[in-house]
């Protein structure tokens, strides 16, 4: 009997701990949502020419954005899909129903610059905001893997245009227009999201040397830099960075000013997906194992110390969500904890390793 009660208590404790973990897990998901619009579709009030201006868009442009948003709502699409529609029309027509094409497509018409090739209906349909948006969204809805791809790639796959990254620069404005038309508090969202919708700034201090911690908050230091024996193969290999376990989606920041030189599939000894930043003077930092959609920068982008560049994931050879943080000096990995310590920065949960 006592044993049964004990088992029940144990089960209860497990459920409690489980619920707590569940709450933490949902919190992490919510954090991602604020930085990358997500959730069910929204429907907005249609006006001929809404008052005011959002990021330079006004009047009939906002009315056209509203028509796009509602065309997406009619098809039951998510707010991310709707925002992709607004972003695409910004990149094609500046949210105006253009009665002309361009050099690449003289026959292109309307908000989405759809061609007269039979795939996009009649000219009257291409010139109608709601009908053209509906044709765009019907094509978009066939891309079943679109939630895992960046908005610009989703738009590019529908439009078949010449530059896959063309729409990226309109994403932030599209998020602003959709949130404004949906009646959300734009200022609060902008403040929470930092310089771009998906790129927040670290709350950590930047030292006089210009460095900051690549990760903050609830982080567990799970594996150190150095030679280690693999638990299964027994082989001794160099673990070239420090592992910091955190929940999936936890923000990762640039450790110093620099320029992004890798942002995608790993190379040069790492696995999965990664970001690498060149800080000049032969110093490079690497942020390994985000999921592909957790990479928030592109190669060639300049970043500042503390700017969010990625989200924690578990891609590649990884047994759970964590950041593998690596510092290479003249091509050779060095102990990142000692390196950062010399710059006045402590990684959370670590102390400077003393030579054995």
């Amino acid at each position, binding site marked *: 009997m006592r044993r049964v009660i004990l088992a029940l208590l144990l089960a209860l404790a497990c459920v409690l701990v489980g619920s707590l973990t*569940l709450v933490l897990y949902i919190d992490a998901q919510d954090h991602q949502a604020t930085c990358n619009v997500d959730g069910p579709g929204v429907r907005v009030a249609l006006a001929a020419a809404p008052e005011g201006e959002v990021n330079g868009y006004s009047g009939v442009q906002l009315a056209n954005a509203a028509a796009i948003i509602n065309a997406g709502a009619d098809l039951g699409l998510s707010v991310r899909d709707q925002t992709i529609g607004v972003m695409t029309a910004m990149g094609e027509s500046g949210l105006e129903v253009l009665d002309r094409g*361009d050099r690449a497509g003289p026959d292109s018409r309307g908000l989405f610059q759809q061609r007269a090739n039979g795939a996009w209906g009649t000219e009257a349909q291409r010139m109608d905001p709601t009908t053209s948006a509906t044709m765009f969204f019907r094509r978009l809805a066939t891309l079943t893997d679109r939630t895992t791809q960046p908005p610009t790639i989703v738009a590019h796959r529908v439009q078949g245009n010449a530059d896959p*990254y063309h729409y990226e620069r309109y994403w932030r404005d599209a998020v602003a227009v959709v949130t404004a038309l949906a009646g959300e508090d734009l200022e609060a969202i902008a403040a929470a999201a930092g310089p771009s919708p998906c790129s927040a700034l670290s709350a950590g201090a930047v030292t006089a040397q210009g460095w900051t911690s690549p990760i903050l908050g609830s982080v567990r230091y799970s594996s150190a*830099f150095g030679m280690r024996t693999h638990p299964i193969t027994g082989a001794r290999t*160099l673990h070239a960075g420090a592992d910091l376990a955190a929940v999936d989606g936890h923000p990762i920041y640039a450790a110093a000013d620099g320029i992004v030189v890798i942002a995608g599939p790993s190379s*040069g000894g790492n696995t999965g997906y990664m970001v690498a930043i060149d800080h000049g003077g032969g110093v490079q930092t690497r942020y390994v194992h985000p999921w592909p959609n957790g990479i928030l920068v592109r*190669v060639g982008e300049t970043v500042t110390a503390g700017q969010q560049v990625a989200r924690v994931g578990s891609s590649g050879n990884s047994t759970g969500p964590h950041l593998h943080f690596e510092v290479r000096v003249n091509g050779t990995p060095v102990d990142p904890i000692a390196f950062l310590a010399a710059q006045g920065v402590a990684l959370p949960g*670590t102390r400077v390793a003393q030579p*054995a």
Partner: protein
Amino acid sequence: MRAGTVAAGLLGLALVLGGCLPGGPEPRPGPVEPPTATATATGAVPSPSPVPVPPPPAGEPMDEPEEPVTRAPVPVWDEASRAQARQASGDAVRAWARPDLPAARWFDELSVFLTPTARRDYQWLQPSSILARKVTGEPEVVEEPSVYLARVDVATDAGTVQVLLSREDGPTAWLVERIVPPEGQA
């Protein structure tokens, strides 16, 4: 139905994370990628320097062994690497500026010049949307923002195409990260 499955999944995950179900946090003996021999092998790879082993940190190791770090030298900007950047950009734009090719063949022949990221993102491109058909001038390195990156302008019959190149380290070749068509042709 789907929402129910997701909720059950979340609860299951919570229980696993809470340590209540077996099989959760055990190390996964997943397939370890064999180290791929890359072009970066520089012959005499220096043996690992005597790295002091720090005291074991709390918790379990999170990485499985990775490919050996190349330890290849950091690239430098010199006349040879500028010439290689011009060559790589010209070759890539010549492969890119072929709007009449079937999409699959166009991508196959372009992809040898692309970085892994570009290879992923250029596979959907419809070559018929490209206006340029010919490289009309000598490519010009216009910016060297990092030893790993080059911006190269390539003149075509439809205007100037901007190419962003990247390289992994000193011994590896330049690859194309992005090809930006002239203004208004994207």
